[in-house]
């Protein structure tokens, strides 16, 4: 029982919640930037220009092939070493997660737009709708329905992946957890199980509502 009590010792619980706050802040900023940039990137990805296509292809392959951790190290340590540019861990994290998220989000947007059959465009043209009206009433509403579930999936993946930033010195929920475990190493050696369980529960709290919303939207629109 002493191991479980570690969670409530001193300000441990508040510290864990504070760590969750850092996790959520990093995630929310990165997700918001990714969605905003992703919409633009996705629209650009549908262009047929070969240079534009090659550029986005390279971007997308990079974020898919290179592990996020390597990107974090590259930005945080690499910039410092190569250009003597010191940025905070949080700034590096937001930069990397936005780089990743905007690429992936762009590809989702591109997929949602191009998956709409060309006939939808033609039949709205045949009804005398202008291009703008076609986008507003026919194409975008259908693209959004295809996009939202995947975008939410991406957002939850980004929240979970923020746990990597503890490795560049950002104290988020997982880092707080391991600090608590380390501090209790001698008097409560089994506390790790409980602390990690608490961290698990906090991630669950952050992602579960998002999954719920996604499920509901999918049901309504399918």
């Amino acid at each position, binding site marked *: 029982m002493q191991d479980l009590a570690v969670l409530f010792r001193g300000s441990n619980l508040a510290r864990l919640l504070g760590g969750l706050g850092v996790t959520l802040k990093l995630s929310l900023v990165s997700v918001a930037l990714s969605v905003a940039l992703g919409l633009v990137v996705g629209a650009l990805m549908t262009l047929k220009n070969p240079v534009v296509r090659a550029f986005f292809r390279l971007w997308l392959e990079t974020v898919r092939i290179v592990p996020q951790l390597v990107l974090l190290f590259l930005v945080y340590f690499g910039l410092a070493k190569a250009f003597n540019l010191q940025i905070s861990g949080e700034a590096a994290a937001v930069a990397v997660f936005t780089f990743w998220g905007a690429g992936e989000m762009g590809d989702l947007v591109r997929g949602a737009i191009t998956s709409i*059959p060309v*006939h*939808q465009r*033609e*039949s*709205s*043209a*045949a*009804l*005398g*709708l*202008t291009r703008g*009206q076609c986008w507003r*009433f*026919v194409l975008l*509403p*259908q693209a959004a*329905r295809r996009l939202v579930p995947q975008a939410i999936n991406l957002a939850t993946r980004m929240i979970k992946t923020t746990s990597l930033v503890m490795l560049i010195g950002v104290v988020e929920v997982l880092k707080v957890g391991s600090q608590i475990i380390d501090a209790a190493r001698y008097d409560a050696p089994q506390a790790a199980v409980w602390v990690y369980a608490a961290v698990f529960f906090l991630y669950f709290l952050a992602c579960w509502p998002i999954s719920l919303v996604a499920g509901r939207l999918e049901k309504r*629109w399918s």
Partner: protein
Amino acid sequence: MSNQPILQVNHLSKNFDGNGVLKDVTFSLNEGEVIVVVGPSGCGKSTLLRCVNGLERPDSGEILLDGARIDDAADLVRVRRQVGMVFQSYDLFPHMDVLANLTLGPVKALKRPRAEVEAEAERALARVDLADKLHALPRQLSGGQKQRVALVRAMLMRPRLLLLDEITAALDPEMVREVLNVVLDLARDGMTMLIVTHEMRFAEAVADRVLFLEGGSVLESAPPKAFFHHPQTDRARRFLDTFEFDAVKQRVE
């Protein structure tokens, strides 16, 4: 009623990758007239319809609607508001219910009052036996029902001319009739139509004139009785023969 044809197609040609899909096609369509275009697949029938509606740009020749030449892209929106088109794959908007599908064009493109259009849409749906489907989503309808909604959607634009591009080709045989009956009703009401179809008996019943298209050229242009019973060209004769089942005939003999 003027003597000027609603649609006039003069020396229309269209190439895809150097292949002539339409070669010097000329014909005209008068008010209240129904022309059915038949021919083997790949003969350019669909391309012809798509050119009339500006979905394809012709390479040469001209298309006149009510005597006015369709020239640039700015004309197209105006033209399409007067020329309805129904496609093989229905192409209803899947995220809208039937009523919203029907009212989108008249309300947004023609800026007509919504209440008035909705009342008209309800009456039109009832005429094609779909009064109870007003708030159904397209995916809840059968193919034949979807195609009837698509016909009503095109008609609510009050077009001068209706283009039908193989509208029964994707339907199960038992649904073909319910759709073609609607088209026959439209013809009886005096709707001007240009129809591409593979249903030869329907073509004979609905057409005032048949155009036989082969390799992008008009080989025959004749009243339906003459075309179906006394085709002038060998090519047309062979084409019509493919609709008879030779093997069955031989067995009966």
